[in-house]
């Protein structure tokens, strides 16, 4: 938190927040939770057209596929945790975005994993690479959601670091839509899933700061052990609960833990909440209210249900052997009240947690574009150089470790331009993600446009009509004027390119402060796209002798 923000909080509250309140405010005012540096810019993005059921603003976006089928889509980054503990960081990244899609009422049906690393010549980078892939594989495979594609890139600027983005799509019937906000007081708030431990404490504030040199030791509290077993049970239990029609609101507990999930769920339409924090099932003895309220323990969901429905839903959770507790209730007064063993430890106006003022940082334009001379190399040499590059060679080593066919929908497997998932006997969903940080580094506006154009080309090349986009913006510290400028340029580029194609963004994610030891990463916007394809029209990938090769375009 910045000094001017602390001052503002004092003014608005008219008193000094206590320890619990400070901890919650700090989490909610972090960049990661509040989008304070990006929110104004993201308003530039087009977000609605005839395909869109639900644009940005909830846990994931929703697109109309046909009258009976909606597609839910979200994208998320888990960069900092993966750089510290690649296996757990990447795996819990998958878990988080899957729950975001789940909590709209959809069954998650596919994942994409755009991942980026430093050069493989270095041991640490190889370690990060190997374990990020293993983390994604183990988690996705075990929860039975196929990873059907992704992107893999190696770049010197990411030495000792990694960018792990994950996109997820889900499928739902319109009648199963559940919002992430409540519209009535009196509802009970129910936590389901894993016990709450001290892991992940301060995870969002961690994601809003640069990693220091010996981050490994310091930041262990921000790392979680993935539990795909519980996640799979949560998926089935949540869907069964949603299908009863008795779930009034639903959110996953991600960054910011219970504080973030509960305050956003009730605050959106001006309600408040009372939370009895000591009722939360705790994994470790001796936890205090602060720890329970901001812990980011994974594989937990927050349900809002009417009192008379609590037992029926509880039976479903018990069938799946999940622990659940009523931790509080929705109140009419717009306040966030927390009790700890009968003692009131927080009483804040809800808006103080959920309505965080934006920040506009200074900007500085730069240009790295210059005329280049084509070097004199022989064709063989050039060919070998390109063909031997880890950025170009087949990524089969990666995707063969992913169960890319579980659920029985994968029509086009990884290795092609975009994946295609069978949605019904006639139509499929195309899904792809692209980004080109080197282009963005040279010219962020054009780089962003290029990413959108590549997504569109990849969708079209499997025969799909593009439907919608999501974006994940991985940047260094916004407090650096060049970075903030490149961020703004990127958003402009994303907006202009989408508009040119008549496309919109239905969800997205911003990850700032991606730097190690004072070195910023390249601007790295990743765009994922959805398309609708008639299965009959999906081109075959079979080559045969005598076919002609042509190039179209400029």
């Amino acid at each position, binding site marked *: 938190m910045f000094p001017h923000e602390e001052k503002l909080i004092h003014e608005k509250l008219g008193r000094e927040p206590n320890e619990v309140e400070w901890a919650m405010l700090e989490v909610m005012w972090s960049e990661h939770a509040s989008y304070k540096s990006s929110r104004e810019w993201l308003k530039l993005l087009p977000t609605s057209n005839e395909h869109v059921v639900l644009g940005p603003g909830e846990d994931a976006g929703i697109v109309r596929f046909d009258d009976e089928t909606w597609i839910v889509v979200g994208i998320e980054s888990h960069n900092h945790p993966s750089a510290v503990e690649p296996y757990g960081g990447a795996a819990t990244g998958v878990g988080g975005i899957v729950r975001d899609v789940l909590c709209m009422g959809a069954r998650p049906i596919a994942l994409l994993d755009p991942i980026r690393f430093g050069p493989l010549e270095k041991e640490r980078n190889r370690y990060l690479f190997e374990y990020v892939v293993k983390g994604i594989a183990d988690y996705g495979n075990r929860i039975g959601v196929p990873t059907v594609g992704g992107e893999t890139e190696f770049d010197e600027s990411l030495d000792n670091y990694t960018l792990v983005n994950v996109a997820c799509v889900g499928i739902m019937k319109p009648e199963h839509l559940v919002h992430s906000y409540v519209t009535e007081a009196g509802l009970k708030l129910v936590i389901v899933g894993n016990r709450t431990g001290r892991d992940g404490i301060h995870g969002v504030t961690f994601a809003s700061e640069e990693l220091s040199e010996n981050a490994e030791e310091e930041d262990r509290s921000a790392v979680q052990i993935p539990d795909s077993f519980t996640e799979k*049970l949560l998926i089935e239990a949540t869907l069964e609960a949603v299908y009863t029609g008795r779930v009034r609101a639903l959110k996953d507990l991600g960054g910011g833990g219970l504080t973030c999930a509960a305050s956003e769920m009730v605050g959106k339409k001006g309600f408040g909440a009372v939370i009895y924090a000591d009722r939360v099932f705790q994994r470790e003895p001796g936890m205090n209210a602060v720890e329970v309220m901001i812990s980011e323990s994974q594989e937990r969901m927050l349900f809002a249900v009417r009192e008379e429905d609590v037992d029926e839903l509880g039976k479903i959770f018990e069938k799946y052997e999940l622990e659940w507790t009523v931790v509080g209730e929705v109140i009419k007064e717009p306040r966030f009240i927390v009790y700890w063993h009968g003692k009131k430890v927080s009483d804040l106006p809800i808006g103080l947690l959920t309505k965080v003022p934006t920040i506009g940082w200074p900007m500085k334009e730069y240009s790295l574009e210059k005329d280049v001379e084509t070097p004199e190399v022989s064709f063989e040499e050039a060919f070998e150089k390109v063909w031997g590059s880890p950025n170009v060679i087949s990524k089969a080593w990666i995707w063969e*470790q992913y169960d890319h*066919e579980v659920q029985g929908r994968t029509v086009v497997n990884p290795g092609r331009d975009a994946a295609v998932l069978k949605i019904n006997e006639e139509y499929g969903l195309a899904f792809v993600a692209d980004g080109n940080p080197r282009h963005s580094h040279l010219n962020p506006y054009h780089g962003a446009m290029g990413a959108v154009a590549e997504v569109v080309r990849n969708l079209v090349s499997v025969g799909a009509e593009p439907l919608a986009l999501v974006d994940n913006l991985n940047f260094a510290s916004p407090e650096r004027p060049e970075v903030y400028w490149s961020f703004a340029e990127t958003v402009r580029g994303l907006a202009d390119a989408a508009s040119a194609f008549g496309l919109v963004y239905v969800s997205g994610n911003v990850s700032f402060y991606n730097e190690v030891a004072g070195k910023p990463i390249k601007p790295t916007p990743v765009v994922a796209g959805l398309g609708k394809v008639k299965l009959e029209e999906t081109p075959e990938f079979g080559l045969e002798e005598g076919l002609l090769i042509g190039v179209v375009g400029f």
Partner: protein
Amino acid sequence: MPKFAVIVFPGTNCDFETERAIRKAGGEAERIWYRESLKDFDGVILPGGFSYADYLRAGAIAARQEIMEEVKELSKEGKPVLGICNGFQILTESGLLPGALRPNRIPRFICKWVHLRVVDTETAFTSLYEPGEVIRMPIAHAEGNYYANDLSKVRITFQYSDGNGEIIEDANPNGSLLNIAGISNEKGNVLGMMPHPERASDRWLGGEDGLRVFSSMIEYAKR
């Protein structure tokens, strides 16, 4: 019409598509949570996935659940019992089939399409194949490396082969003895296989070679 139970353990994840494939082959199927009963079913499928997250050993914990006693009863009555992937692991762990499934030769999860040679068409699940027929199906597993102390007692159903049906080392994706991909019990009514026939039951999803596993089973159950 014969009706089959598709057993769902915590962590099972191929239950829906297996149910779909059985229906497509002309049978009735119902997903059964592992704490429910298997009364009134004409056969059982243990589908793929990660029961208990593969903790300890793949299939080990599921094999010790009470419902497996009922599965044993059904198998004694001669009803068909099919274990696919994790289901195969559960069948060996519970002693319904001999041997063990060990971590792949390269100890990683591997997901890809392979060729299989149908060695034995006298089982409840292979009667509609031709002896020696070569078929295609995907595998997706980390522990599919078949091992048994005494292979002479093992009734082999499927072997990994090349496209011409040759049983060669290069076609062995996981290090299984004799390229074993599937085996049955002596009576032929209990079968375990690592490849996923339910994922090879739709022309849009790479082929329909697996569908006959289910239609053979339905034919068998009608007798």
